[in-house]
């Protein structure tokens, strides 16, 4: 348990992606089976074990520690699991129970009945040190939030075993903790495990960004164009009674979309865009990305929400049709199969991403800037002869996004960064003017922490240090007055209404496009300008 606890402690505080990968890969290399498999499942929250209510833990600690002392401590620490892990007396050396293994804990919890819970937990708390107790409590209360996505985990396993990450993604859903066959393969002790799961994930093909200049080197006749829809990329798969909706990175997100799942009465695997859409006659009217957001990141979806924001699939590729794997066919051929396939599906849940006719790149450029639907964020260009390969090969598929929205905003607050940037003020909150013209105030509209060069970062940092008005821990408020302040040109992909922000708007994907040292703050944009951009 010690190694696992130490890994969690480090992961939580490590901001760098590469450092996280290194910590994970080292852990996997140093830890025996089956502990390492359970550990990674715990981190990616794929471990199905009995959960324990905080009230039970409070009751246990009340038997050991004075209530008033516990109260003072809880007030100071602020987190129940952490307070209990630190205040629990022990470890009791004579318990003879030296550092229980993670696998022993997980397996005991898998077999335990609910009434066994308190006794088991109490024994482990006695045997573990404070870090171990913290890991245990997070594990059993389901509070394991440590910033490691399953995608990152797969990358770490790929680094560890020297295998391509797409191979691991493909296998992932056929495997269960503690993943023994997977590790056998990664360690070179066995062949690659066969993917036994029905409806497995097929690693997706991604497009590279492009622009007019880049496209000029290619022949437009080799390409087909489609709109780039502003939803989320998914793979929907139905085989042998098994139906799954996967995210782009192979996470199973089926549970969030029972309405679409119910309509997946086919055998095959479709690649497409998940959108909110209302069937009207034969067509589907597409909802906005803010509509779709109502449906994202949910564990359960109330029927009312499903009715108000029904999700649909706008299909653009067909990877598997019945028994046929189509990925080795060229795009044009797959597209033909796709068109026939979609015809047989219910029209209120599935439609086809239409092709956009064009002759020259200029045509494409013109259409890209005048899309027929507000939920379009650019165009996709796919080579007619491209076979479906995982990853992001350069050339066969391009995405050409619409130009971002731009707004001039005023820097209001700056926060110190993390890791490499911990000595820099690198996270910026910016605002625009609102209120009467002669008495305007700034209202924050967003936060950005990239888009600038290292040189620019140094300059902004200097500005922040020289113009600090107030400090709140790691945050500084900076001078932002009509005639003194720093104007930032902010680029963003879209704007949503927001009840959580004072300004009433929330930017999507904001970043710093340019520093406008030349511009006095009173010339920065007003909130009305942003409001006019709302759909």
């Amino acid at each position, binding site marked *: 348990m010690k190694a696992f606890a130490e890994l969690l402690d480090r992961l939580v505080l490590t901001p760098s992606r590469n*450092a996280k990968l290194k*910590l994970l890969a080292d852990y996997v290399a140093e830890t025996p089976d089956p502990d390492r498999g359970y550990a990674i499942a715990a981190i990616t929250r794929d471990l199905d074990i009995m959960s324990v209510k905080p009230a039970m833990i409070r009751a246990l600690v009340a038997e050991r520690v004075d209530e008033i002392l516990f109260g003072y401590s809880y007030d100071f620490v602020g987190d129940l699991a952490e307070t209990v892990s630190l205040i629990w007396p022990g470890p009791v050396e004579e318990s003879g129970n030296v550092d229980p293994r993670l696998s022993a804990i997980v397996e005991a919890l898998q077999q335990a009945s609910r009434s066994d819970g308190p006794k088991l937990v109490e024994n482990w708390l006695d045997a573990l040190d404070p870090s171990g107790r913290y890991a245990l409590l997070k594990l059993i209360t389901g509070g394991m939030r440590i910033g490691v996505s399953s995608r990152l985990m797969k990358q770490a396993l790929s680094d560890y075993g020297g295998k391509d990450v797409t191979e691991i993604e493909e296998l992932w859903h056929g495997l269960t903790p503690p993943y023994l066959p997977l590790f056998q393969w990664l360690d070179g002790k066995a062949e690659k495990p066969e993917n036994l799961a029905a409806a497995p994930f097929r690693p997706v093909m991604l497009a590279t960004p492009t622009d007019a200049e880049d496209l000029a080197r290619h022949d437009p006749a080799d390409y087909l164009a489609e709109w780039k829809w502003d939803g989320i990329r998914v793979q929907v798969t139905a085989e042998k009674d098994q139906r799954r909706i996967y995210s782009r990175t192979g996470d199973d997100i089926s549970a969030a979309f029972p309405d679409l799942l119910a309509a997946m009465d086919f055998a095959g695997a479709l690649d497409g865009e998940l959108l909110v859409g209302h069937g009207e006659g034969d067509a589907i009217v597409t909802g906005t990305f803010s509509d779709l957001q109502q449906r994202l990141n949910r564990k359960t979806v109330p029927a009312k929400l499903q009715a108000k924001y029904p999700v649909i699939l706008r299909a653009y590729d067909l990877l598997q049709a019945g028994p046929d794997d189509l990925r080795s066919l060229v795009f044009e051929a797959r597209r033909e199969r796709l068109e026939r396939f979609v015809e047989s599906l219910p029209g209120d849940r599935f439609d086809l991403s239409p092709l956009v006719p064009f002759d020259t790149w200029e045509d494409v450029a013109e259409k890209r800037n005048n899309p027929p639907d507000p939920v379009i964020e650019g165009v996709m260009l796919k080579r007619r002869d491209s076979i479906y390969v995982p990853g992001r090969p350069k050339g066969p598929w391009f995405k050409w996004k619409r130009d971002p929205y731009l707004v001039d905003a005023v820097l209001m607050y700056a926060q110190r960064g993390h890791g490499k940037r911990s*000595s820099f003020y690198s996270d910026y909150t910016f605002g625009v003017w609102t209120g009467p013209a002669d008495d305007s105030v700034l209202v924050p509209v967003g936060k950005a922490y990239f888009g600038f060069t290292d040189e620019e970062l140094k300059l902004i940092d200097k500005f922040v240090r020289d113009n600090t008005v107030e400090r709140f821990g790691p945050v500084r408020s900076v001078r932002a007055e009509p005639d003194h302040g720093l104007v930032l040109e902010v680029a963003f992909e879209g704007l949503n209404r927001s009840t959580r922000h004072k300004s009433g708007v929330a930017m999507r994907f904001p970043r710093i496009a340019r520093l406008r040292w030349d511009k006095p703050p009173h010339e920065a944009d007003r909130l009305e300008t942003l409001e006019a951009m709302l759909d």
Partner: protein
Amino acid sequence: MRFEDLLRPTEKGLYCPPGDFHIDPVRPVERALVTHGHADHARPGHAHVMATRETLDIMGIRYGEGFAGQTQAAAYGEVMSLNGVTVSWHPAGHVLGAAQIAVEKDGVRIVASGDYKRRRDPTCAAFEPVECDVFITEATFGLPVFRHPDDREEIARLLKSVEQFPQSAHLVGAYALGKAQRVIALLREAGYDRVIYIHGAMQKLCDYYISRGVDLGPLAPATIDRAARDQFAGAIVIGPPAAFVDRWARRFPDPVSCFASGWMRVRQRAKQRGVELPLILSDHCDWDELTETILELRPQEVWVTHGREEALVRWCELNQIRAKPLNIVGYEDETE
């Protein structure tokens, strides 16, 4: 004699009326007895200062030679008389030169322990328990959640990380007096024999520790040699915590920020400061050391100077020991 007639809290700090002296006064006084060299206990501007040789030297290094009108050195174990009050000096185990001061008159003895710890520290003399009627204790980590782990484990975690990330400089924030030298000495005990780089603010104090016979191994200033850009890759750099959020820190490649402090026990504290590798190393007692010391001494009363007084007072009540907080203003615990 009532205990309060021998020693009592005042605005300027603890005062002994019959002896006419203050202990660790927070404002200038005629005669000050100083337990140790940390800035909140040892302030400049007193007419007479009595302290251990080491504490006087440290005050001289920090404030310059004219920090007091007159000074008088006291040795551990030395017993002296001040206006009929018997004063003796005993190791506190906190930092180099740190002393507990025992004050005695008419059969009543009060021990002002200053800041202290009970675990072994290669850079200073170990705490010696002194029997007393009143024990005056700090409570910097006076909550039962503060239980410092074994120092060796913390140092092992640092060394493991250095091995895992050989391209990075490990920047260890540590208070310049005591903590920095202890971290270095613990690294040496763990077998780390490479050059350790130190911030300029620590140079004089490290030199002083070395002159008092503390072995710190090879040290070098953490200044940039333009000829060798990667000199800090894989290195351990020790500096005052504030320096690592300052522009000074930018010279280091891929830094991993570490902080050696008892506060690092609480994850949120580490997170707030942007610390990636917290090292729970403290020069103060943890909860178990505080309570065990009180049980060992069994004084008639416990007075708590600073920190989380209410919890320690509560614990004393539960153990039928009279206790009260002194509410002395001016001692900080953030420097730990």
